[in-house]
């Protein structure tokens, strides 16, 4: 289970970074937003599907290459996930505040 926890936390960090990045990039690039919309009919639906794919895909890769993550690495990965989630949430909120009132 430790292997799954480590893989999930690293994958969740990558997913948070991915979700924040694609959200901000799509607001600056109409062609990217158009591509996202063309895939599923709505840009948010495509982002949702992509976050699931990124999470499961990265988790599978990390799980297969890390047979026995050390105690320190597992703990650090969880703290990094906590930090990434806080920064990710604040980045999204901060970006849309800036975008609306610039």
């Amino acid at each position: 289970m430790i292997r799954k926890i480590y893989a999930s936390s690293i994958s969740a960090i990558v997913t948070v970074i991915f979700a924040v990045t694609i959200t901000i990039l799509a607001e600056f690039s109409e062609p990217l937003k158009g591509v996202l919309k063309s895939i599923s009919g709505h840009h948010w639906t495509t982002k949702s599907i992509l976050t699931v794919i990124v999470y499961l895909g990265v988790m599978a890769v990390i799980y297969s290459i890390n047979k026995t993550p050390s105690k320190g690495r597992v703990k650090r990965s969880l703290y990094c996930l906590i930090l990434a989630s806080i920064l990710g949430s604040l980045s999204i909120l901060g970006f849309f505040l800036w975008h609306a009132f610039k």
Partner: protein
Amino acid sequence: MDILVNKPILIGLHLGFAILGIDLFLWLAGEIIANPVKRFRMVWVAGAGLLSFVLAWIIGGLYYVNYYGSLVKPIIKAGSAPWAHSVVMESKEHIFLLIIPMAATAFFLSFLKKKEIEEYGLKLPFLVLVLLIALIALSIGAMGYIISAAARWG
């Protein structure tokens, strides 16, 4: 399948599952603090919390994609608080995407035995992660209230 086109029911289910998810993750925080030897309840609570958030995500997404853009967004944008869409709704719909991978990680953590949690020193990060999930979900709930208020009372 009439339920899929019934807007008040969709909103009610979205809100209901979100509240259930928050409650279950707060319960999970209590389980982590208690740190019992038998972990069945912890796994059940974490699994039900994850499932609740997934259902809130899917049902809320269904409403958002099919009805919000055409029915609610124009009212908010024409009202006195257009920022309720451009800041609050935009933030809400995207921050929600972060919750599922976080909750899935908490679900996997719930399977650890008491001895493993202590051996790996994971009690504190597990607790902080679970409380953060509940806090972010509560903030998203507050955003939902602002959006709803802007649409109703402009």
